[in-house]
């Protein structure tokens, strides 16, 4: 039989195993806003892009924005402009920027039947 402390360790390990191993923690929108100064020139203050060739980021899903920035940084998604910006970002920066733009009013989540 397992004693109490062994049982606690086992439960702890189980919880750790179930946590997603993404290496990303939660982003902070307020910190993201401060880090977004560079983005503003093309994507606008809140992510409403000024040039229609560039995507609107305002209201986009946080997890998709994280994926896009991580892909630009790794080179999985190729874009000369975004590659150079993303190269300077840490995981925390990406999380914060995604949290900021996702929290803004913009894109619509569709429910089409």
């Amino acid at each position, binding site marked *: 039989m397992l004693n109490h402390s062994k049982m606690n360790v086992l439960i702890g390990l189980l919880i750790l195993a179930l946590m997603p191993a993404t290496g990303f923690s939660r982003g902070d929108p307020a910190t993201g806003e401060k880090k977004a100064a560079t983005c503003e020139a093309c994507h606008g203050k809140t992510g409403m*892009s000024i040039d*229609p*060739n*560039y*995507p*609107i980021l305002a*209201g*986009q*899903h*946080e*997890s*998709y924005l*994280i*994926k896009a920035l991580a892909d630009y940084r790794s080179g*999985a*998604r*190729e874009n000369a402009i975004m590659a150079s910006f993303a190269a300077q970002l840490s995981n925390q920066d990406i999380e914060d920027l995604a949290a900021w733009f996702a929290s803004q009013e*913009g*894109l*619509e*989540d*569709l*429910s*089409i*039947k």
Partner: protein
Amino acid sequence: MRFLLIISALFLVCGQVQAKGDPAAGKIKAYTCTGCHGIAGYNNVYPTYKVPKIGGQNYEYLVIALKEYRDGNRDHGTMELQAQTLSDQDMEDIAAYFASLGKDD
């Protein structure tokens, strides 16, 4: 000579005015797209992230994105296959439809 000038001037004008797609035609052509992009909060899997919102997205960007998928310049198995079935006109119509959503409500 004058005729040639007029013709080349016409070509220049046409090249600059990019006709946008037809949202009504796009709505019909977008039937497949809505299987993922028309369900609020729908997840992509392996890796898991939410399928991007495209309602109200910029028309020009949507056309660029579809062409990148079609030409193999942007990786996503499903999107590459979908984009390869579309003509330029299809892409413009579909982009016009999604860009038009959520703009005036």
